[in-house]
């Protein structure tokens, strides 16, 4: 089965872009401000966003860029829409914050609202809830975005009849560093579709927006 990248987006250190076009410049701003700007830029109006940790917020923004324009009645089935994400730092950004709430014997204040975000796949859960995507899930960890491994795992997921489309990509946050590169992948040959293969993903992911 041939698979295509129907659209893609990148929220990197300097820009928010979609399909290779810059939507917003992020020069010199920190992660907090980026997450705030992104919310306004996409006109999200989703109060749950404020309760999320940075990793989930970043994933929600990137997913929104790709999913806001999907014609759900014509293109994809939400029941058969998978989410396959990876990163290198798991939920370490929140793990470190959570550890501070339990590190001292006399200041022991673990919070369930924070603890739940100490799993990397929660970002996939948040995206699933916002867009009601009920298909397959897979979260895996690699040293850096491993496009070869990703291609193999995406082929796995599409070999099942339960998958008609998937969000695929990289969502990583640690301290001030953030990087999200998401693709909407499906067998649909849409107008600007790019063949889904490791080499093409590498090219799109490493594109320099100057």
């Amino acid at each position: 089965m041939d698979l295509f990248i129907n659209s893609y987006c990148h929220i990197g250190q300097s820009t928010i872009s979609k399909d290779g076009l810059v939507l917003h410049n992020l020069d010199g701003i920190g992660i907090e401000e980026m997450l705030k700007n992104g919310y306004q830029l996409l006109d999200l109006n989703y109060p749950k966003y404020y309760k999320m940790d940075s990793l989930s917020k970043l994933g929600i923004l990137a997913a929104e860029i790709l999913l806001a324009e999907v014609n759900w009645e014509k293109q994809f089935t939400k029941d058969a829409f998978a989410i396959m994400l990876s990163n290198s730092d798991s939920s370490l950004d929140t793990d470190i914050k959570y550890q501070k709430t339990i590190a001292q014997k006399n200041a022991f204040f673990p919070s369930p609202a924070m603890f739940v975000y100490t799993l990397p796949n929660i970002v996939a859960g948040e995206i699933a809830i916002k867009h009601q995507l009920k298909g397959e899930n897979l979260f895996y960890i690699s040293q850096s975005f491993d496009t070869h491994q990703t291609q193999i795992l995406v082929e796995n997921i599409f070999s099942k009849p339960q998958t008609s489309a998937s969000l695929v990509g990289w969502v990583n946050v640690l301290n001030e560093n953030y990087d999200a590169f998401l693709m909407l992948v499906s067998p649909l040959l849409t107008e600007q579709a790019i063949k889904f293969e490791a080499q093409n993903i590498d090219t799109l992911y490493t594109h320099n927006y100057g």
Partner: protein
Amino acid sequence: MRKVYSIADTIFAPLGFSTQENWAALEQNISGVAPYHSTQEELNYCYAAVINNEKLENKFSLLPPSITPATKLEKMFIASIADALQHTSVNVSSNRTLFVYATTKGNIDVLDSRNFIGSGRVKLFDMAQYVTKYFGNPNQPLVISNACISGVLAIEVASSLVKRGLYDHVIVTGGDLVSMFTLSGFHSFQALSHGVCKPFDKDRTGINLGEAAATMILSAEPQLSSDIEILAGATSNDANHISGPSRTGDGLAKAMDSAIANASIDYSDIEYLLAHGTATIYNDEMEAKAIESRNLSHIPTNSMKAYYGHTLGAAGVVETIIAMQSMKKDTIFKSLGYVQSGVSTELNVVTKNTTTTIAYAMKTASGFGGCNAALILKK
């Protein structure tokens, strides 16, 4: 497409450091869960299944030494994988052999500066790479971290890689620790039981945490005629809540439907269900609804959580191994902790060790983030 079999396995847990030792304890319905002594007063009520450090050191000292000091979890992984490999002639240094890890928190204990060991491999990939290098495997490991379905999902993904012919052998290993980190978190959710947990029982009050490292070696060729085939699996998302299961069980039922379809069998073929059964009010109720909705209420069902605690990323591997051994040995263990039904629809929860033949079994799991998984095993 090739078939895939589990040719060797090891459960490294408080009940024993090999599958055989674990089996012997399970036959006597012994629980590995015990009162947990915490330095934090607030947690003194809790029970957990913890691996004795001294016994672990003794076991680990028999193995070839690692180049740099290993953490507790790394020692558990290494000892578990080494034991499983003993039973096969798999070439771990071949590029046709892949290591797949399932873990939620890895070396999370090293985040607490008081426990700093090794090189502080708190990153999951660093830990996996360290263990993989110990065995001299040349491939980048695949590390799956998808909450409490990690283990079942890792087996499913690994079996797909063998079926597609990408690897001849995959070593699937799942491991997690009992740590202040996870205990305090489940405590904050008021999800910890004050005694040994009671899955599906009317008096259940929550989970016990446990630690384990469990390993399965998957191969396209069976080693023995009794080796269990991993038929197929599937996952789904509830798209409902990040920390609570769906009230309806629809998400889990969807994963079960997909697994049954992918295995090309019918629900009527299933003769044993090893459930997730965490013993929280909501999880067990959700599972019961899913099981009933697919007319599986009469199928012998058990939970392993009162024997092992909830071993998080390891749970799916530990429990799949038990399901496979149950199929091989025609025995379904008593679902420890269960006396009287505490879910809205009565299930066939096994109340004493039972002898029965099992051709097809199902293993299910659900986790935070709304994820569900189901796996089908064939004798």
